[in-house]
């Protein structure tokens, strides 16, 4: 049955189109099942952990995208992730905006910031790029602690964010409900995963990978090598901002920790655990990371066990869990293309 469908689809649309439609079908089923099934089976506590994992997975997804397509490691996603929460909170409490307006204004500010920063740094070499994203991120995370900004940012205590009414048409109370939030976070993750997957296969993806490989030859082939990288960088930050908005709506507070280097490095670890070469890996990595952290925390040895686990993971799965499993399945000949 599936074979027939696949064969006729191949005949009608050609290989790549049929794979695309197959991916869309799989995506839709995954979207539906993943959004509701866990809410029947899992406790609120597990759903909360899972949602945290998904948000981390979203960040990992964006970072992995840039790593994979452009060969650039962004270490500053936390400043966008946390910054989204702060700007949203400040927009409502200090500027008197409605939740939806605050969200839009915060998003625009982040977009402008990311574009300007990106314009300055995407031309640099990978190592310099990484250090610059790190420096910019640290700058922001220290800025919120400034005494002069305390009235806005709440200093080290952070801010409690009370959202009254609806955000983009969704009642704010629903974000706080673990089951409903899981479904939302899941839906967003799947959609963003599919979007980045499609972009990686688009012309932009091809151009980015070619620039990663030989930037000079791309210029000598008439390409603008700056704009595609800037677009890639801004995309990453848009995803980080979305994750940040989801986080603040769910948690109801923002703290300086959400801007910290820890968020950025955890993101990187999640991406490496899951595997950076697709959309599935980073999301899975985020989930694994979140549940593992909880397990390790219960034993009171979070840092130590995390360190050990990272080493073990990277030794056993150098290309991440998804990369490792797909490599294994290929070797065992489970994939039809191989036969």
């Amino acid at each position: 049955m599936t074979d027939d469908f696949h064969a006729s689809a191949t005949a009608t649309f050609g290989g790549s189109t049929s794979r695309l439609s197959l991916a869309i079908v799989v995506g839709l089923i995954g979207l539906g099942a993943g959004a509701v099934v866990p809410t029947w089976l899992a406790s609120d506590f597990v759903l909360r952990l899972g949602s945290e994992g998904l948000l981390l997975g979203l960040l990992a997804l964006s970072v992995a995208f840039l790593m994979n397509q452009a060969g650039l490691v962004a270490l500053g996603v936390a400043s966008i992730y946390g910054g989204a929460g702060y700007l949203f909170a400040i927009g409502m409490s200090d500027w008197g905006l409605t939740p939806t307006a605050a969200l839009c204004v915060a998003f625009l500010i982040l977009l402008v910031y990311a574009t300007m920063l990106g314009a300055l740094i995407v031309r640099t070499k990978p190592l310099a790029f990484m250090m610059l994203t790190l420096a910019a991120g640290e700058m922001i995370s220290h800025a919120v602690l400034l005494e002069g900004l305390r009235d806005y940012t709440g200093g080290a205590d952070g801010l409690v964010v009370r959202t009254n009414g609806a955000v983009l048409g969704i009642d704010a109370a629903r974000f706080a409900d673990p089951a409903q939030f899981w479904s939302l976070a899941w839906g967003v993750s799947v959609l963003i995963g599919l979007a980045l997957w499609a972009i990686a296969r688009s012309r932009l993806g091809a151009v980015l990978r070619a620039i990663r490989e030989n930037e000079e030859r791309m210029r000598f082939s008439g390409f603008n090598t700056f704009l595609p990288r800037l677009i890639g960088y801004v995309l990453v930050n848009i995803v980080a901002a979305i994750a940040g908005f989801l986080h603040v709506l769910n948690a109801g507070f923002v703290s300086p920790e959400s801007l910290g280097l820890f968020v950025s490095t955890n993101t990187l670890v999640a991406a490496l655990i899951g595997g950076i070469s697709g959309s599935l890996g980073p999301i899975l990595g985020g989930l694994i990371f979140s549940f593992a952290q909880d397990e390790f925390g219960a034993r009171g040895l979070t840092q130590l066990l995390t360190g050990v686990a990272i080493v073990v993971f990277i030794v056993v799965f150098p290309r991440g869990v998804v990369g490792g499993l797909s490599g294994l399945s290929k070797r065992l000949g489970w994939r039809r293309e191989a036969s």
Partner: protein
Amino acid sequence: MLTIEKLSVSYGSVRALTDVDLEIRGDGLLHGIIGPNGAGKSTLLDAICGRRRPTSGRVRYCGEDITRHSVSWRRRQGMARSFQRTSIFQDLTVHEQLQLVAQHLGDGRVGDVIEVMDLGGYLDQKAGRIAYGVQRRVDVALALIGRPRLLLMDEPGAGLSATETLRLFEHVRDLVRERRIAAVVVEHDVEAVFACCGMVTVLDLGRHLATGTPEAIRADHRVVAAYLGTAA
């Protein structure tokens, strides 16, 4: 088509080119550039195509002063180059990279380039996996896409045997003649240059030594003293 006026290029305190004047006509003839190691041949191409800003002097292309335009702008205006050190996309197949560039430059006739560079048998192989000589041809092929009006080639024969070099030169010579475009070729293999180029320029220690037909250059006693020696 291309006029170089009093062009000087320095790398820090090293003067690689000093007051070079040169005129390249777009009349379907290959223009060869020869000279000893370090004479400034690659530097001259770099300055023409925008890879390196000249310290002084000007580059005019089709009458326009383009000294300050970017590399990619020049490429889109029909100025293409190949590299002395092979510069291709190792991770892409031969076809993928030619197609990528062709789409960007709106060239619907990649087939012509594939045929001229004789790459038909390698299209689906990753460029990093094919023989060095074929990689050199991919490097030149990338420059040929988009029907360039001025072709700059830096030692296309580097790493090829004398016969391979001659064949490559003959291919390029025919192409340039057929399309009536301009081409500047830097080459160590003097025999290939004399066999295929209509004009030859000799550089020595960053200075322009002589320009003329192959026969005139061969007979020029300054060139013989500086470069060709008794071998020619």
